[in-house]
């Protein structure tokens, strides 16, 4: 094999390695990045679009991602990707400002600063939610899950069950408040005990 071909192959191999590394990181953390994006948008609408644009941008810029130490690569990748995601949220919102409710840029910035801290605890938070759900009465648990099931809403449930929207809503909100407090307590109550 001549040198040129060898050089081309090496470059290709390097690129493949880099790509594998990237896909690995993205696959591991895309749920965290997605959650971050969701936090900055008023609803779930647009999350897929922004996530996609963020992923593409991350790959384009991946050469510039140089973690200080391999051990920190995970944390740094999430932070790095979230910086990109933040700008993608802003530009996505800018394009759609006229037709729907969107957060002001100043609100997005303040939320973003804080959300980055939440992202790190996503897994623990999810486990805490499951545990807290288990502590609810069966009917309460079903109710609060029904409201959040895909395609469901309080208004729809009310229509289907004949209950007053307001009454149902306050019941759901009371449950959500209880869950919020329960989750917070659990996370705060953790000691570094493994």
């Amino acid at each position, binding site marked *: 094999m001549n040198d040129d071909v060898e050089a081309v192959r090496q470059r*290709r191999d390097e690129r493949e390695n880099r790509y594998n590394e990237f896909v690995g990181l993205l696959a591991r953390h895309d749920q965290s990045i997605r959650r971050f994006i969701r*936090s900055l948008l008023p609803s779930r609408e647009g999350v897929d679009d922004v996530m996609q644009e963020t992923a593409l941008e991350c790959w384009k810029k991946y050469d510039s991602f140089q973690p200080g130490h391999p051990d920190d690569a995970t944390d740094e990748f999430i932070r790095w990707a979230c910086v990109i995601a933040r700008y993608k949220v802003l530009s996505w919102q800018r394009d759609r400002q006229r037709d729907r409710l969107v957060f002001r840029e100043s609100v997005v910035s303040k939320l973003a600063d804080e959300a980055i801290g*939440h992202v790190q605890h996503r897994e623990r938070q999810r486990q805490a*939610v499951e545990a807290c759900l288990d502590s609810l009465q069966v*009917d309460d648990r079903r109710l609060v899950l029904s409201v*959040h099931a895909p395609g469901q809403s309080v208004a729809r449930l009310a229509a289907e069950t004949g209950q007053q929207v307001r009454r149902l809503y306050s019941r759901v909100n009371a449950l959500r408040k209880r869950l919020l407090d329960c989750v917070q307590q659990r996370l705060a109550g953790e000691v570094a005990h493994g």
Partner: protein
Amino acid sequence: MDDSIRKLIFTAIDGTISPEDFERLQDAIERSEEVRDEYLRAVSLCEDLAEIAGDQPVTDALSETQSPVRRPTSRNFRPDLFRLNPVHLAVAFMLLVTVGGVAYWFGQRHSVVPASPVAGSESRGEVPREAVIAGHATLRRSVDLKWSEGTTTWREGDVLPDGMLNFDEGVAEFDFFCGATLIVEGPASLNIESDWSVQVIEGRLRANVPPAARGFVVRAPGADIVDLGTEFALEVGDGDARVEVLDGEVELRGGEHDGQLLRTGEKQSLTDSGRPPQAIEGLSTIGELLRRRDDAEAERLSQWKVFAEHLARDRRLIAYYPMALASEGRIVRNAAGTGAERNGHIVGPVQQVPGRFGTASTGFDFERPGARVRTRIDGEFEAFTFVCWVRIDSLEHRYNALLMGDGYENGEPHWQIRDDGRLMFSVMVDDSKEVRHFSRLEQRVVTDAGLHRVYYTEPFWDITQSGQWFHLAAVYDPEGRTVAQYVNGREISRHEIADRFHTSTLRIGPAEIGNWGQPFRKTPEFAVRNLNGTIDELAIFGTPLDADEIASLYNEGRPLGY
């Protein structure tokens, strides 16, 4: 937190907020850190609830109202898988654009994913979710295999998902799930497409197709070869592809030979019909592969034996059980200088099975609950290093034992694997205390008998690795105040020993390999912690070994194909 703000937050999340209230909410978010925090936690909660709701069938949300509630459309909704798609598609697309033609092997990363409950199922309540893994074939055996640099490497027994396989040297035998077997000589480049189809970009191979696999397709430059039974050879390289039927019949599809049938002894060049087809010579048969493998395995075993003898003389050893050397009777010999006093004894239905060097070596299988190897190691130690070679078939119990001090008294070690694939190592600090703490893994407050800390690693094992050999090590170093754990010579976790969990007097006493003895229990029941797997070497050192030494133990002990 002001309840009206909280209400605003939920109406915003539910999408029912009015423009005026939305402004109020934004003002509050901007002004107050507390509101921001509350908002973010509420969004997170609702997202988690949506994921959980989408994950499980929710029935009769308001059963007491007796009204028909429509079941959420959870049937086709698998949040994790569903949501990954757009990103993966995007990345795949980018790749095509930027590095066109380069194979991408996202699919080669295994993950065990829960399948959705049976679609349309009328069952109510909790439906246990079934685990599924992606794969089309296994790497059954290999000899002298050198994977190409920068490509994914596989080990014997691995389940192979779709995607590229590239190796520069050696011979590998692949079993496709449909029943077809390929013996491939390197350099080779293959693309596994499904249980029934593989694309050959480069390489020489022999395909064996039993009746159950009839219709298996090997796609080569110039034509697809459809095997109608039983065996053919293929050589792809230098811009040419040649096929020769060794026994049976194949059909060529596509290209200029479309529809052509080849029978026993017939050959065809697929790409250049002008060139006379030549016989494909010197291809490995299964018999040859086996012979070469046996030879290589025997050599590997004899190398390891030399190393094991050398290791047995290490004065830092507390005990050393090289079980892979065939043993006699019910004794597991302690090969270290510390003598027969520390021999192990087989108790119960321990099966002697082939060890990691194949049939010429031995391993102990602890598959059944009563199976154990008991030993007694008296004395006090300043540090521990545990090292073993283990083949895990499944992690069927909550805790699966490697080496456990009986009972679990002061200074005694517990070395085990949790059912989620995490290694656990712990030493009892004060067995007189009862300690309550919130367990992150259990997500509840647990009461521990005795003060101790369990040092967990991230999961290193899942069911795709069933049947594979692993080299595991745990180092407990009170003086250096660290606990380090290793898998296959690589450190996967390192923890500091906090003051309250510090103890410098270590003991082992009566202990078990592959199970947990609880002779002091007050009930007839015992915890089931036998290892569903095989151990064929275990060493205990009284000093902390460093990362280089652990890596070297791994390298010296690696079985063939690692």
